């Protein structure tokens, strides 16, 4: 039987495909997924590199932090949004990656092993170890649902920093570890801004994460994630193994968190348990919800927000010339308060998160341009 697909690509693109910036809406996926996503990544990368050339050191460090967080939020939103597994433990997974990178870097440095490849190698080690941790948590998670799963991941979030203070011989307790900082290669010139170099490394990690996740989300594995989230019985009858898919989602998400944590540690060349408190895990979750659950573009919003809101209290206390006591109290709590407030406001204004709001807006604009009503979207996205 021959089919006659309609000529115009309907505005209701696939929810999966709508996640991806630059992916065409329409039935027949044209061209190679890899090339399409690679083009988007190269474009975004070039843009950010051009921007970093104009920025001051501290701003470049902020860009670098956004990129580090993007690795984490992108993986987190795939797990929570697309696969429906709530994780409150991603801060701990970040810590796992960060400590692995620090330990690897220290070990290499002690043996006087140097070279450009040591950083990618330690980041890879961070990804591998965190993925392994994700496998363990994921195996438990696949048997748990809802609040019980949240409870286990919450335990992970509190456990990992505690481990670092128990095994002080390896992790050096509250002091944490430090390792040699990354310096720009000589080829870039003697006066190259080190923060810009850090931003570039973080950017490369973020782009790689986004590229691979975009590919994955677009493939049958991405579909399986949603299938398992939406209806477990129907998923099994469709031949999709529920538990295996859930574990896989956890491993992928953990690997991303490990990379993000490793990059995050690299930025300051130190790692300490105080950098990965329970708050961080909660912030990560709030960030992806505000950005738009399940959306990779929303993960970008979330990462920007994480950095912006973390820096806000400092900025505020600096400019308002408050008393030292008040300033200190604000520093500690303002971020959480502001984050909570933003979460409430965004959820009221755009239940689909910032990216959901952007989507609704563009759909409405497109509808107005084409003089046809904006298409209805499925309620949960």
């Amino acid at each position, binding site marked *: 039987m021959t*089919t006659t697909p309609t000529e115009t690509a309907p505005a209701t693109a696939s929810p999966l495909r709508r996640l991806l910036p630059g992916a065409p809406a329409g039935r027949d996926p044209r061209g190679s997924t890899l090339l399409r996503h690679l083009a988007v990544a190269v474009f975004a990368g070039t843009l950010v590199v051009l921007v970093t050339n104009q920025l001051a050191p501290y701003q470049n460090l902020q860009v670098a932090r956004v990129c580090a967080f993007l690795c984490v939020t992108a993986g987190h939103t795939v797990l929570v949004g697309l696969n429906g597994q709530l994780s409150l433990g991603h801060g701990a997974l970040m810590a796992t990656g960060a400590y692995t990178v620090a330990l690897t870097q220290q070990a290499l440095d002690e043996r006087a092993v140097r070279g450009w490849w040591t950083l990618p190698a330690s980041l890879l080690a961070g990804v591998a170890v965190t993925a392994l941790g994700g496998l363990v948590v994921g195996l438990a998670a696949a048997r748990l649902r809802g609040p019980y799963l949240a409870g286990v991941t919450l335990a992970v979030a509190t456990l990992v920093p505690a481990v670092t203070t128990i095994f002080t011989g390896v992790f050096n307790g509250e002091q944490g570890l430090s390792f040699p900082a990354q310096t720009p290669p000589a080829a870039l010139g003697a006066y190259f801004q080190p923060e810009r170099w850090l931003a570039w490394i973080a950017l490369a990690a973020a782009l790689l994460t986004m590229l691979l996740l975009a*590919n994955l989300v677009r493939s049958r*594995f991405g579909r399986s994630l949603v299938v398992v989230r939406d209806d477990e019985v129907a998923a099994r009858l469709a031949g999709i193994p529920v538990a295996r898919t859930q574990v896989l989602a956890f491993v992928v998400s953990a690997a991303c968190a490990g990379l993000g944590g490793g990059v995050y540690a690299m930025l300051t060349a130190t790692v300490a348990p105080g950098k990965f408190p329970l708050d961080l895990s909660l912030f990560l979750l709030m960030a992806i919800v505000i950005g738009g659950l399940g959306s990779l573009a929303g993960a970008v919003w979330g990462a920007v927000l994480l950095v912006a809101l973390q820096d806000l209290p400092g900025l505020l206390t600096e400019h308002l010339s408050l008393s030292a006591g008040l300033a200190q109290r604000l520093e500690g709590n303002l971020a959480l308060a502001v984050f909570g407030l933003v979460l409430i406001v965004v959820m009221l204004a755009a239940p689909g998160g910032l990216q959901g709001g952007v989507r609704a807006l563009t759909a409405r604009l497109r509808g107005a341009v084409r003089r046809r009503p904006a298409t209805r979207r499925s309620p949960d996205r």
Partner: protein
Amino acid sequence: MSPPATPVDDQGLALHHVGVRFGGLVALDDVSLRVPPGRVVGVIGPNGAGKTTLFNVVCGFVRPTEGSLTLDGRPFRPRPHDLTRLGIARTLQGVGLFAGLTVLENVVAGASHTARAGFAAALFGLPRSDRDESRLRARALNLLAELGIDKHADAAPGTLPYAVRKRVALARALIARPRLLLLDEPAGGLGADDVAELADLVRALPDRADGCAVLLVEHHMDLVMSVCHDLVVLDFGKVIAAGAPESIRDDPRVTEAYLGADVPVEGSTP
């Protein structure tokens, strides 16, 4: 019970003296039936007669406490996520579509087991993974066209009328190219016109290019009578009658089970 004999004509699915007990409750008792290739077999019975339990046994959601199953004469211990690989697909009571996917993606999801590209190919977006996708999408679109709902391919299932959603669920089962299709109350919630169309559709299933046998659980007597080659009537977990639809219609035991003085109590199976 001795292992079932395997005569040459023992093709298709067979249940041999299957019993299911939930604690003290007997959901199925000594149920034997066969679904040979190319046949449409209907299972009817009042509410709580054990029809859904029967389906759950065939799908592996419920293990029989007695008896056995065979597929083409070989012992068969079903597991839900292996069914499509074995050529068995099932639609669910209600619709059971994936709300987060489009109609087309819902249908494609039914053929996940036929994908050839592995995880690495998907991660790196290799052409192998792309080829899988376009092949399955084309097949899904063909199927949607065959069922007359291809214009809804890119819609979210939640926005569609119930009858269309039921067809999407059917398409999702058919894309696996099953040799045995289990339909769980396909007419549930449908209007008269939709039931008539459904009847034509089900009747045609064994004669399609990738034709299949059908095991049908249904309340709707007109549909069952018009599409089934064989009928099995369940009541209180027991087979009270089996045979051609015409003979079943006139069977006094069946009339009694449905209409007689001894009206069965609802809800004796989950």
